[in-house]
């Protein structure tokens, strides 16, 4: 009897042992993934378009956790904008180089007469140079914001790039004020002479005389100069408005408005820079005698007759022609 009892205990023990072994072995057919059908982040974003909630921080805008438009904007700012800027600026430089090598400097065909006529008064030159010098610093510091990290940082290292970028940002933000003042003054000073008219249509049809040796007539400002005027006024106005919106963040708009302001500011700026490169070219090496207009304020009479014949007629009709001493020009 005792031996039978031992046999039973042995049998039961063995069965329990086998059961424990079997239960401890993972059984693939029964494995469950508890999160298989739960909502994924990507689904959530697509459904809701933005993720936001309640926050105790006073600035309620911090309640927006993620918005897909932000990623689109980041793609624009890091990729698209750099392409636009690169093509516009490098493309303009390439065009100017090719043009200079083929057409060369537009020469004063009848040579200098030695007599001058006042073209721009001191105040006009002051306003132009204030706006222009601010523009140069704004352009360089602005390009640093877009291109500095990929192009300049590898060359000069983190310490130098940080220091330079801090000063560039301060310069950009503070010089925007005299630049804006200059744009407003330019608009007011020269609006009278920059209204397009029939003479400009004819001037444009003849290509401004830029190709060949044509000298289409023009008043004080030819069609090319009027184009630059309106680019400065409208472009300058656009970058000023969007720039101040960026400088005083969220005063006027939410995050979408700030993104739009940055897009407008950056695109207009890089195109503005390309246009100003052409303006600088034609006013310096592109045309003989042109720089005098903004340099000393007086231009050679032959230069004036060749490039602004109708303006010279008006000026000479006002009084005796000016010699080497400046003659005051009547206000426009």
């Amino acid at each position: 009897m005792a031996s039978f009892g031992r046999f039973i205990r042995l049998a039961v023990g063995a069965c329990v042992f086998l059961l424990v072994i079997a239960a401890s072995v993972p059984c693939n057919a029964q494995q469950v993934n508890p999160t298989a059908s739960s909502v994924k982040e990507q689904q959530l974003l697509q459904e809701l378009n933005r993720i936001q909630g309640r926050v105790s921080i006073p600035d309620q805008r911090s309640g927006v956790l993620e918005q897909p438009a932000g990623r689109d904007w980041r793609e624009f700012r890091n990729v698209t904008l750099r392409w636009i800027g690169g093509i516009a600026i490098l493309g303009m430089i390439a065009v100017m180089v090719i043009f200079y090598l083929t057409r060369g400097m537009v020469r004063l065909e009848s040579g200098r007469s030695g007599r001058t006529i006042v073209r721009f008064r001191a105040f006009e030159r002051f306003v132009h140079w204030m706006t222009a010098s601010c523009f140069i610093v704004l352009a360089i510091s602005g390009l640093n914001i877009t291109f500095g990290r990929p192009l300049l940082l590898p060359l000069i290292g983190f310490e130098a790039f940080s220091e330079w970028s801090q000063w560039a940002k301060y310069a950009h933000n503070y010089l925007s004020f005299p630049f804006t003042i200059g744009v407003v003054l330019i608009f007011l000073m020269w609006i009278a002479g920059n209204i397009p008219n029939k003479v400009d249509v004819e001037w444009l049809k003849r290509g401004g005389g830029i190709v060949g040796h044509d000298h289409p007539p023009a008043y004080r400002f030819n069609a090319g100069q009027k184009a630059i005027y309106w680019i400065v006024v409208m472009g300058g106005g656009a970058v000023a408005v969007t720039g101040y919106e960026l400088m005083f963040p969220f005063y006027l708009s939410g995050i979408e408005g700030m993104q739009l302001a940055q897009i407008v500011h950056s695109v207009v700026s890089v195109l503005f820079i390309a246009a100003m490169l052409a303006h600088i070219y034609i006013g310096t090496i592109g045309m003989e005698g042109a720089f005098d207009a903004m340099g000393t304020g007086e231009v050679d009479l032959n230069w004036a007759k060749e490039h602004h014949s109708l303006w010279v007629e008006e000026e000479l009709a006002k009084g005796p022609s000016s010699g080497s001493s400046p003659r005051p020009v009547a206000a426009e």
Partner: protein
Amino acid sequence: MKAFLAALLFAAIAAVGVSILLNAIQEPSSVAFTTGGARVGDPGHNLVGPNG
């Protein structure tokens, strides 16, 4: 030349003047966004701010 130098000088004076004015009327975000209910603390020392 005089007009050009006067222009540079005026631009520099205007920029400095604006910087003084703005620094006087603007507050750093840790001050501006602190209320009785939530204190936005010291942002740290690795940022460019009024003391940096």
